[in-house]
């Protein structure tokens, strides 16, 4: 495939992934990931591997499934009501392609989140930063093996985070 074709496919996948989160279509969202995937939001841009320290999110697929299952559970009052998000994806770039076809891509993303708690302007929050995807070629196309979200405020103190970035 041409470079332009690959870039188009990668961009579409990253945009689709963000759209599925905004739509809360978590089943379809999980299906984009490999069984051994990792969803990782480090506490420092210096972290090199998910095991090297604590993280805001450091999920295997089971935890991703439990987390998103909980978001749709009416008894999960920590997510009552469930947050609504809008992802803006920009600047998708292919940083490297391995010999086996694994693609290393990055994008800039801004996530607007709203959860109504009658706390006025605090009910809306903005997150954003550099998002890195490692995409593995599988029989059914590219699948996400790693999603790393480097928030601009990675070291910052967070209040409750219910929705994945």
């Amino acid at each position, binding site marked *: 495939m041409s470079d332009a074709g690959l870039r188009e496919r990668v961009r579409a996948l990253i945009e689709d992934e963000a759209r599925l989160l905004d739509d809360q279509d978590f089943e379809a969202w999980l299906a984009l990931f490999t069984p051994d995937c990792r969803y990782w939001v480090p506490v420092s841009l210096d972290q090199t591997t998910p095991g090297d320290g604590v993280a805001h*999110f450091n999920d295997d697929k089971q935890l991703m499934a439990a987390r998103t299952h909980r978001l749709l559970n009416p008894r999960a009052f920590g997510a009552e009501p469930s947050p609504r998000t809008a992802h803006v994806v920009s600047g998708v770039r292919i940083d490297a392609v391995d010999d086996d076809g694994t693609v290393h891509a990055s994008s800039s993303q801004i996530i607007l989140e709203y959860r109504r708690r009658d706390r006025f302007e605090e009910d809306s929050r903005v997150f954003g930063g550099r998002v890195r995807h490692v995409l593995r070629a599988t029989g059914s196309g590219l699948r996400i093996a790693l999603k790393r979200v480097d928030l601009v405020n990675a070291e910052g103190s967070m209040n409750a985070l219910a929705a994945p970035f």
Partner: protein
Amino acid sequence: MVGGMATLLNSPPRLDPSALVRPGRVHRSVYTDAEIFRLEMERIFSRAWIYLAHESEMPAAGDYVRRHIGSRQVILTRDRDGAVHAIPNRCSHRGTTLCAFDRGSAPGGHSCPYHGWNFAADGRLRGVPQRSNYEGVLELGDYDLQPVRVAAYRGFLFGTLDAEAVPLVEFLGHMATSIDDLVDRSPSGEVVCSPHVLRHHYRGNWKLSFENLNDTIHPGFAHSASVVSAKAVAAGLEEGEPLAASLGMMLANGKPIQFFQDLDMVTTPRGHSYIGGHMGASYTADTQSAYAQALIAHHGPDKAARVLGTDRHLMLLYPSSTWHARYQTVRIVRPVRHDLTEIIGYTFRLPGAPEETYRNAVEYCTGANSAASPVIADDLEVYERIMDGNGFDAREWVPMSRGLREDREAVPGLTRSPATSEAFIRNQFAAWADYMGAAA
């Protein structure tokens, strides 16, 4: 202001804290009144020993970390001789904070960004630019930063603003054994603090966190949705596919209440407490054979067996920190305002232990301390709802009477109760009233 007027009209005198704590109940204003918070900073956080840092966070001469004692900022410094000092993060000239980073190295001392006054690691004012302007006016020694009293227990550094405070070991009492529990788990005798730190906060009072962590009744309700979701995922696993450790931790909250009723809670003077461990094998095994062997080599078989056999859940060291020895996690509870609290989580490596031991600590700390942890998100929601509900005067007194008549054993320095008891909260408020009762 939250709670202000109603408190003044209906309740005990708000500036007489001893009237706000009665047997088995406290007045709601202890959570919602900004003036009470100001008194807490003055009477509790200025008198107790406050956990600040571990020595490994500042290994070399000139290294420093910035921490809080209540509302005060302090810089912990290491001087050329290796001694540790705590000095106020405040220039003695115009009051500018000297240091803007949580950790770093300042081998040339701490210089004020405003006029360049320079302070040594021990707080001594070393120099002032344009000394000639101060000729006959200013003695450098009059403007040294007054060091704060610091003491270490097995490498963990505490500070107090009270020159009269009892020695640190007396303050810790029986709880020193929970710090021993953490350090003794190291096959080299050393523990090293990870540079990666997890911070979260909530719009609520600092005491709410202390009152939640050893409350074994709330998980069955507050965290039930995570249990439901973890079970749903577990049910869908393929044959032979292992359950992830993170889900094991969520499921641990689903234990029957009788399990916790049978477990012990230990409370000690000055507001401290812990309960027996309960996450056990359903979470992660930390007795991998390589680790056990290394521990036996260090301690000998008897002590190693004792260390590995110890299973305590969180130790609450009132009013500054919460400790999980088995997963090498320490959390600082930082009161910011009466309605704003930050929790800062640190993990420790045990040099000589397999990498898996550190991974377990990281896994635990992430699950127990990330704002994104489904379990923590539920707790943060509850804290904020408690603040909302106590912000108006539908009811003035908050009961904390669960298990009031169920204590199992009381010996000097230690009381045992069922882990379902609110004895640890009553114990915190006994300490609270003690600290708050008398003006400084």
